[in-house]
């Protein structure tokens, strides 16, 4: 019950998220009257701004997804966050170099600041008793504070082309120029090549550092190499996503991929695709209105992908799991009903026609209404047909076979427990009640062999045989047009 409630609240959250996205569109509607025109401009790709913005967003999505995968499996999510905040003073200093938004100067400044931040964290960790998370928290805030101070100072400077510098905080994909794009392409290419070439080194150092060291790998060099690439990725993502949210672009697509696959190589691929999707989504939505930031939309796009993986992932998804459990519970219930029908028939030595709802209800100690519901379930799965206004249950051939199989499983298991495990005959029923639904064909055959093809259970009742299965018909089965049966063999 609580599981269902949880699922429901998650669905609500998802709905709220999509409403939020929709209302964001409405904001765009207010500020820009021709929303449709903007969308059209976006999808025709005629505007070079659109092309740069989209291409840049996709490139940074790939880079962030690939590196983010390693960040996630190495449990370095906080490091990514700290690094992204630490680059801000570098951006400001890079600007001050030429008093101009020169991509290369900003790139170098930001990378150096980011690396300085990570080195500071290592130094604090190694020379004091403080743990890494504390060091990260401090360094993150301090560097960010310095960055904000410098940015404010630059805004007050009388000279220089300051246009677009304020966009580094929340990101503006439309501010991506051809030079920025070239830099992004170079970094993305570098990241792809390095990960491809050093895949096995990254893999083994991420999984088992001590082992990697014991085989002679330069673990520290690989770690700092990864940090350098990470700094590159953060810096190229800055312009579009912004300092504040760039760590989400590193973590969220990779986290979604992590939920969907059990292999690192596939995780890298999926994370790159999700990053691309998120990037494109962000670029599109921020384009709809004149001053809408890109970063938040990208991050929300990534979160939407993550929510999808979280809820509907084929193996670990919450909804998927709930659904699987529900269908398993329903199958068990159907099998129990079939078993009861079999028991009723067995009690009257397989004579007479069909099983009435009243008989079934008495057998299962339920109300007739419940029995009617159960019978309806059997009919829906073509295991039984209902006659005389739904009051009489006739098993179909497949229903009969399943009933035989489940009773057979039950009685074989009871016999096995009493014979092999030497449990008293009156203690085996409850265990068999559970195991009967999960015994596979292989196990059943093994049981038969071990029990020397016994024909009666510990309570003296016959175990349905293969002959009963093959017969495919019982007193309780009747096709619509035929009546009349022989008893079982």
């Amino acid at each position, binding site marked *: 019950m609580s599981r269902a409630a949880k699922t429901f609240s998650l669905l609500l959250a998802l709905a709220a998220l999509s409403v939020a996205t929709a209302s964001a569109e409405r904001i765009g509607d207010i500020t820009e009257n021709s929303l449709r025109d903007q969308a059209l401009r976006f999808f025709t790709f005629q505007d070079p701004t659109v092309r740069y913005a989209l291409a840049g967003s996709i490139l940074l999505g790939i880079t962030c997804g690939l590196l983010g995968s390693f960040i996630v*499996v190495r449990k370095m999510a906080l490091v990514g966050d700290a690094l992204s905040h630490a680059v801000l003073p570098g951006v400001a200093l890079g600007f001050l170099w030429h008093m101009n938004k020169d991509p290369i100067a900003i790139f170098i400044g930001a990378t150096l600041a980011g690396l300085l931040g990570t080195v500071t964290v290592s130094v604090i960790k190694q020379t004091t008793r403080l743990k890494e998370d504390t060091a990260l928290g401090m360094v993150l805030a301090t560097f960010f504070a310095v960055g904000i101070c410098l940015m404010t100072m630059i805004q007050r400077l009388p000279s220089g082309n300051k246009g677009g510098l304020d966009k580094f905080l929340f990101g503006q994909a439309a501010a991506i120029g051809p030079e920025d794009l070239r830099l992004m392409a170079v970094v993305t290419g570098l990241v792809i090549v390095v990960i491809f070439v050093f895949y*096995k080194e990254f*893999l083994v150092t991420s999984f088992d550092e*001590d*082992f990697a060291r*014991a*085989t002679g*790998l330069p673990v520290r060099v690989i770690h700092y190499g990864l940090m350098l690439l990470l700094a590159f990725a953060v810096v190229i993502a800055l312009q579009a996503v912004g300092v504040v949210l760039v760590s989400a672009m590193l973590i969220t697509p990779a986290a979604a991929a992590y939920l969907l696959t059990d292999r690192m190589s596939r995780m890298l691929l999926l994370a790159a695709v999700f990053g691309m999707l998120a990037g494109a989504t962000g670029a599109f939505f921020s384009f709809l209105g004149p001053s809408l930031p890109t970063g938040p939309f990208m991050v929300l796009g990534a979160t939407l992908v993550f929510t999808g993986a979280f809820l509907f992932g084929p193996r670990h998804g919450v909804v998927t799991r709930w659904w699987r459990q529900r269908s398993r519970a329903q199958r068990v219930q159907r099998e129990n009903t079939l078993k009861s029908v079999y028991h009723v028939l067995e009690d009257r030595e397989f004579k007479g026609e069909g099983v009435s709802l009243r008989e079934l209800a008495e057998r299962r100690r339920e109300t007739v209404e419940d029995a009617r519901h159960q019978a309806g379930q059997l009919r829906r799965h073509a295991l039984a047909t209902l006659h005389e206004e739904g009051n009489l249950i006739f098993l179909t051939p497949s229903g009969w076979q399943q009933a035989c199989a489940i009773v057979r499983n039950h009685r074989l298991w009871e016999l096995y427990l009493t014979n092999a495990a030497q449990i008293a005959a009156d203690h085996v029923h409850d265990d068999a009640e559970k195991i009967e639904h999960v015994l596979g064909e292989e196990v059943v055959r093994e049981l038969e062999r071990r029990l020397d093809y016994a024909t009666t259970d510990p309570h003296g009742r016959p175990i349905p045989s293969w002959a009963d299965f093959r017969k495919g018909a019982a007193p309780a089965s009747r096709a619509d047009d035929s009546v009349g049966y022989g008893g079982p063999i």
Partner: protein
Amino acid sequence: MNSSVPLPKFPQADIAANGGAASSDIALEVHDLTVAYHKKPVLWGVDLAVPRGRLVGIVGPNGAGKSTLIKAAMGILPLSSGWVKVFGEPVKKNLTRIGYVPQRESVDWDFPVSVKDVVLMGRYGHLGLFKRPTKRDRDIAHECLDKVKMLPYANRQISNLSGGQQQRVFLARALAQESDLYFMDEPFAGVDAATESAIVTLLHELRNKGKTLLVVHHDLPTARDYFDTLLLLNMRVVAFGRTEEVFTHELLQKTYGGRLTILSEVAHEVGQRGGNPRVP
């Protein structure tokens, strides 16, 4: 301070018994090894010479530096002083002749890799940078998985394994390293009885092939049965030698200090079984 601690027993006699103390007969030589964490020594002045073809159990109380010793011997940890030689050469030159089974809890078993991928990591040391595992490497990994009876699980993700199965995977990875000297950190911790006996059999097989194995072990009573040589460790080497010579009440007392509960258990065990250790 030094004089209050008895000098470690240097196993000269053992080496001599093995026919001359030529350095090539020594698989692992540790000289005056000291390792410290945050300036607190964990191992102190360890001298050790392990002859080839020995199955050595490293026993000692918690915090005795058992894991630290094997990590330091492999060069994973920085040494405060001393040196380590493997087959007569510095460790760094002989890394491919070393196999390693780390503690099972040292890795994240939710990591997105399959059983096969993990075993293949054993081949990485032989591959060098840039190169990808070849068909031959895959075949070796396959054989090693078969040796520990984990072949049916080759394509499973590692989180879907029991503790014993995880340990078998680590063993298969070490086998894939095709080494001459193995370091194993508590391979018996948290495994089922079937896996435990399978591992013991495997260790003896490796020893009989002339491999040298150093195994950190936490269970004293079984240590006596499993290993032909024991290293009693408590920050320093208390004793090193043939199990039947070293597994004595005084030496164990010296190793474990005042932990009498463990000792009385062991004494009980020894008393019950009497005389010679049983080797499976």
